[in-house]
């Protein structure tokens, strides 16, 4: 601290500042600029790219409307399933001696890439019931084999064969099948974080409630949920961000075909396959606008968690 020159701190910060300027600050500004220019960034077109996103179906396999709807479906179902199942498993696991082993089994998918997870599940979903595990299971119990990845109808296996064949737009078999893969990967995260939160609930508190005659449901509703709600919020915001930025899983499982596109896959196709940098940049801005509010909440909560642990 003594006799240090004024520029010394800047020397320590220089590599970080340089990299962040080149790879994050400049690109954000440049993407904003390109979103107002035409496909090869040579002519100013105003908000035409944004109008194109809102008004027109993007060519090729899908369109922005269904992509945004798909993101919404992901956001709702992926987040609620992963949190719900994760909370259930965390509660069950906290009551057994083999807690660590059970949690490991659920957590392992977090270690592997979405690419590997996609291969794993393409294999599970194979149409031929002699090979595909899921269809083998369903046909064994008298149902019909389903093309889980291609089928855009409403679920029509023995599970739900009473309902209508088609449901409002994003609710289709293959979207649900992809969401299951997402849930399979991310539930482990929810379990581990929620278990840590559960540990904070003192056994004295639970015991006192039981002595006072509270049943398990009342304990869950009146003690566990209120105490755990900040932790649930941390998990949920993290999962919402994952749902909004989702790319790898959809790209490897379907390539966005069969009406499964999400904003990030549409962005990738527009930007790097069609090479329309205008529309691609506008889609990136849409993604930014969707992510920022959730991210701000998430970082605030994360900071709170770090400070209080």
């Amino acid at each position, binding site marked *: *601290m003594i006799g*240090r020159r*004024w520029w010394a*701190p800047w020397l320590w*910060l220089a*590599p*970080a500042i340089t*990299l*962040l300027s*080149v*790879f*994050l600050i400049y*690109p954000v500004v*440049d*993407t904003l600029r*390109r979103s107002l220019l035409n496909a090869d960034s040579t002519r100013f077109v105003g908000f035409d790219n944004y109008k194109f996103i809102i008004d027109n179906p993007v060519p090729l396999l899908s369109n922005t409307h269904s992509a945004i709807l798909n993101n919404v479906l992901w956001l709702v179902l992926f987040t609620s399933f992963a949190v719900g199942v994760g909370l259930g498993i965390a509660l*069950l696991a906290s*009551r*057994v001696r083999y807690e660590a082993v*059970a949690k*490991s*089994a659920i957590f*392992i998918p*977090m*270690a*592997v*890439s979405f*690419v590997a997870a996609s*291969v*794993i*599940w*393409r*294999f599970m979903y194979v149409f031929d019931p002699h090979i595909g*595990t899921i269809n*083998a299971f369903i046909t064994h119990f008298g149902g019909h084999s389903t093309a889980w990845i291609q089928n855009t109808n409403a679920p029509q296996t023995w599970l739900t064969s009473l309902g209508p064949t088609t449901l409002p737009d994003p609710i289709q078999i293959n979207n649900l099948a992809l969401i299951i893969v997402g849930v*399979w990967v991310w539930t482990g*995260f929810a379990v*581990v*974080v929620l278990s840590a939160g559960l*540990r904070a609930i003192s056994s004295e508190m*639970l015991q006192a409630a039981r*002595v006072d005659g509270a049943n398990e449901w009342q304990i869950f509703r009146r003690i566990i949920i209120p105490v755990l709600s900040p932790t649930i919020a941390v998990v949920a915001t993290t999962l919402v*961000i994952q749902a*909004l*930025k989702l*790319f*790898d899983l959809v*790209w*490897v499982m379907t*390539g966005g075909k069969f009406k499964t596109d999400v904003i990030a896959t549409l962005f*990738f196709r527009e930007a790097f396959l069609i090479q329309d*940098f205008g529309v691609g*940049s506008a889609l*990136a801005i849409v*993604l*930014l606008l969707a*992510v920022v509010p959730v*991210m701000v909440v998430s*970082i605030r909560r994360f900071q709170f968690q*770090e400070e209080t642990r």
Partner: protein
Amino acid sequence: MEESARGRIATRLPSPADPAAVLGGGLKRLFIRLPLHIVLIGLAIIWSIPTIALLVSSFRTPQDIASNGWWNAFRLPLNFTTANYENVLQQHGMGRAFINSLIISVPATLLVILIAALAAYAFSWMRFPGRNALFLVMVGMLVVPLQMTLIPVLRLYVRLTPNVDMPILGGNLFGVSSFAGIWLAHTAYGLPLAVYLLRNFFGSLPKDLIESAYLDGASDLGVFFRIVLPLSVPALGALAIFQFLWVWNDLLVALTLLGDPRLYPMTVNITTLVSSFGSNYQVLTAAAFVSMVVPLIIFFALQRYFVQGLLAGAVKG
């Protein structure tokens, strides 16, 4: 220990004085708790089945994979083979892709730790105008989705790519289809989170220790390398595991910045295999498992750091 104690409290009825309850307690308790065990073990098994299906199938012959399900693999006579692995490693580029994944991930991990540690040290132990504001700006960059940066970075790289090859490793020296280009990109994307985590950790180190080192005439570099880094091994370990796995498992950045198939990491290679060998599961299962080996080893060997790292890193999208 604490958890299992709570688990017992959770289910024991509050009547310990009843002798019959004490005698039959063990068996009765097991019976009452049977549904709990069935549901939990059932879920753990369901969660493991997909991975087991992949692993088992990767050791079956192509004929077996195409004709019947993996659950038949244990019928006698057993017929397992390692040919699929030899095949994907040699014919389908997974051997080279494995090396590429290492070449990409290791430097990108070390660089982010070094650069973030330098910055975090300055934020923790040096005084300069605008310190807090700059820290907030850096951490604030966590909100930027990666996709935002890809078009400008690729355009920039296209302009900066020299007509010179990277010695030994291959690819261009810099820019598109270069290892140096993807190292720097991954390092930058990892920095906001890494600076944030390390600043928090460095800030929690004992102040007296560091100040007395200064009084003894130690330089900043001396304090950094001899005191701060050694004391921060747990934080650095968790961060290293998270960053390594993030880069190892990344598809999007590699898909965008590496156009040369000789440089493909495993994620990109598997993606191309999926589109060209979509239903040849003898190729896909073995390839996917090759890509999972390193993360699984890290998971089982360093489980505690691993979980900590992933939890800390979860805010990064």
